């Protein structure tokens, strides 16, 4: 992979390789072109790839190099990059709604994990709470019912004991 350059470093490096082939004015124009085009800001990797590609081209045709050739080559590369069809995922990421959606997702995930973690912590410790269960609205028919608790292994067990009055089941 090519070394990373800032735009200024890239232009300086490019022209340093071909010292004397560009005028100072050419350098300024080339630097201005690179610095003014926002497409260079979008993807550092593209800049690196172009740097490699352009350097090879310039080295191949070093006897005829000039700013118009250089400029045309840069513009051609930019056009190629623009025309290259973006993948569905790239287009998805480019949507303006994605950033707030991701932020919301992050907050939601943290909240959900905290909730699940808290819930599982309380549920996996049966000794933590003495009276874990309860009985409400008790209505016994043909019997009397008594509610109390007994000490089970690791937990208090609520007991409903039915004293049948007349119904014998077997």
């Amino acid at each position, binding site marked *: 992979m090519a070394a990373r350059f800032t735009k200024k470093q890239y232009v300086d490096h490019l022209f340093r390789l071909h010292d004397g082939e560009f005028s100072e004015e050419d350098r300024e124009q080339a630097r201005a072109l690179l610095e003014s085009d926002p497409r260079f800001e979008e993807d550092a990797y593209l800049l690196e790839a172009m740097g490699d590609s352009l350097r090879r081209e310039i080295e191949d045709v070093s006897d005829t190099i000039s700013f118009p050739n250089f400029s045309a080559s840069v513009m051609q590369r930019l056009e190629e990059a623009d025309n290259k069809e973006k993948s569905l995922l790239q287009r998805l990421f480019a949507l303006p709604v994605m950033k707030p959606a991701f932020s919301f*997702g992050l907050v939601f995930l943290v909240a959900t994990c905290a909730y699940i973690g808290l819930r599982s912590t309380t549920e996996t410790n049966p000794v933590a709470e003495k009276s874990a*269960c309860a009985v409400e609205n008790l209505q016994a028919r043909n019997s009397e019912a008594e509610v109390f608790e007994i000490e089970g292994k690791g937990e208090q067990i609520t007991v409903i004991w039915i004293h049948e009055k007349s119904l014998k*089941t077997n």
Partner: protein
Amino acid sequence: MKFRVLKWLLLLTLTLSVWCGASAAFSAEVEMKVTAIYASRENKIIDDRLKDLADTLAKRFGYTSYKVEAEQIHTRRFGQKADVALPGMRPLTLQPRGKEPSGQIRINLQIPDLLMTDLLFKSGHHILIGGPLYKKGVLILLIRATEK
């Protein structure tokens, strides 16, 4: 490059969030396990599955024999009823009603002509219902409710 990694991390985050949210929303199921135990003083045989509980019951009620007669597991959503066939008894109906603010699971229990009540379970804990006469002893129902 860093922004790309961040994008992937955020996409993963979003996916996990949706997954967690969906699983939480559809998790309102309650597993109810009913163990029917025949307790008597006929002998001193204790079912291996009840050894921990048998000591407690023997001290409290004085029975010497504990045998598991039936064991059933029913999983229901809130509002759905589960009919549990009990040995020698009228059917038992369990209906999860919802969750209390305390986090307890409210389950309505009905045994026709005998008992009707609401049981509030901490998930994974037990309630014991005993006393109905059965054979030469009594039937004890050990009920556990677990939120899924």
